[in-house]
């Protein structure tokens, strides 16, 4: 039943998202010119249609999930592993934000090495030596490829500059 109940909440979430788009995001986010001669040409026309479509489709999903009573093949995961997994995801999310904020200050190469180690620490590995080697060599190789072969300037950061 978990999956079906899940579908019900998914559908409801989509309905809410659609309503949010219709009543908040589109009026706030779409600037329409003073006069639009042909109504279907308004910049808000398509976004509105799509937002309403989401409302309707989400509604259909929720109603069908609520009415169907089929056995559910998916069983819920063990809750202890789940909590640890969610914790890891939270750490990962924080890491992602840090990467986006500091990659240009620290230098993309060093950030990538740290991020690699971070992920390995988070998940654990049975191949630690290989992981360390790849963590160091891969960003360097990519840097040399992009900077010197492809002519794409990779952010170098404030502290250590590579040739």
């Amino acid at each position: 039943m978990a999956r079906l109940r899940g579908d019900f909440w998914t559908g409801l979430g989509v309905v809410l998202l659609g309503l949010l788009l219709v009543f908040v995001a589109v009026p706030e986010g779409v600037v329409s010119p003073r006069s639009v001669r042909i109504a279907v040409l308004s910049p808000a026309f398509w976004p509105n249609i799509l937002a309403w479509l989401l409302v309707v489709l989400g509604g259909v999903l929720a109603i069908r999930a609520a009415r169907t009573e089929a056995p559910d093949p998916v069983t819920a995961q063990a809750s202890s592993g789940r909590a640890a997994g969610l914790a890891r995801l939270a750490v990962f999310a924080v890491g992602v934000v840090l990467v986006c904020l500091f990659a240009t200050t620290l230098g993309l190469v060093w950030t990538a090495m740290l991020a690699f180690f971070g992920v390995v620490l988070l998940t654990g590995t049975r191949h630690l030596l290989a992981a360390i080697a790849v963590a160091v060599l891969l960003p360097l190789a990519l840097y040399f490829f992009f900077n010197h072969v492809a002519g794409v300037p990779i952010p170098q950061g404030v502290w250590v500059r590579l040739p």
Partner: protein
Amino acid sequence: MSFADTLVAAFSLVAHWESILYLALGVTVGVVAGAIPGVSATMAVALTLPFTFALEPIYGILLLLGVYKGGIFGGSIPAILIKTPGTPASSATTLDGYPLAERGEAGRALGVALYASCIADLISNLSLILFAGWLASFALSFGPPEFFALIVFSLTIIAGVSGDSLIKGLIAAAGGLFLATIGLDLVYGTDRFSFGDPNLMGGLNFIAVLIGLFALPEIIAHVFRAKEDVHDPARALGGGWATLGDLRRCLKSIVRGGLIGVVLGAIPGVGGAPAAFLSYSEAQRTSPNRANFGKGEVEGVAAAEAGNNGVCGATLIPLLSLGVPGDVITAIIIGAFMIHGLQPGPMLFVTNADIVYALFMGLILSSIFLLGIGSVAIRIFRLVSDIPKSVLAPAVLVLCVFGTFAINNSMFDVAVMFAMGGLGYLMLVLGVPAAPFLIGFILGPLLEDKFRQSMLMSGGAPEIFVRSPITWLFWALTALALAFIIASLRKSWRAAGTASET
């Protein structure tokens, strides 16, 4: 100069060891670059362009074409091995390619992808050589209303790639369509969801969305599970090679995919990704192995790869016969023509016929090179499937960050990629398929722009959408596809009904 003289002159242009060398070099560069996630075929061609300035025109153009073809095939390598389409056109390849790799049949999937690519490429090149003039006039009769009808028809693909829940597929597609509305409005130039941010004004970068949606959820799922894959001996082998039987089984889908690619490639502005998806969904609709699609069916890989490589030669049809770029890549190639003082268009066949025929020979040759270089590349790259997941996942993450950054030299794109990764993971958990979302995102701008351009042309009168036989054709095809979808839905409901009764 007679035709025979032209052919001789063309042959003497191609038959230099330099032409062969540059073509081979181009294909190699393309395959390798395409295999790096984030470095799409477009980017590989753009990066190669400056190197051609100093070369003879024919060498420069052969080099670029080699990169183009190699890049489109190369994109399928990471699509199969790490579920990261190396180039947008290979997103459809992940649908069946990755499940095959998971089952330890990466070698087989890659082999089928290569054969499909080469055969479709050949079909495409032959169509270019034989039917360029005819297909070009067909392409020119595609105004905005015809285009709109074609895109509406293409949206019926969604049913084929939705997995078990059509309604969830539709939700995903609507989400993708909505996301594509971010950016400056086409007709009025006003802000839509960009809130004055210059990064958002151009809309979300396609490749950043693609990588985020396909590659990142796998990595996030790995972080969640944190389990080293139990070393599966089958997977470790990277698995076997495509057999002749595989090829025979897929041949029909490959030829059909190639032809779909040719038709869509000849129309300026469609590109490889819709062709691959359309070819995939057609194969799925007609295949005897229908039920296996999406779970690791070689025919699915073959159809997708045939669709995107079928586009390669055909995009040169509008380029050579009209001087019009069919997609971003051919726009760059036109730049290369111009820089060498060649003006693509009908007169090119008169003024520089030797170059045109030399190009044709080079193209045919490139299909053969692709087969050779591709099979070497596969043998090397499939070792990737032996890398343990705990090392592979962070490595893919680093590749994605570098590749996404390099598209526009922008950390904003990297942030978009991560955000889409979060969304993609959420969708994975909720069982909402990602492929329809991507199709919506690709086709969304075309659908809206062509609709609005048509409305501008007609002053708001809807009759314009049925103005020509081409529009009628696509509306009829749309109706047929819808009827088919409804029929198969009813069948599956009835099947579900009897199953629950027993």
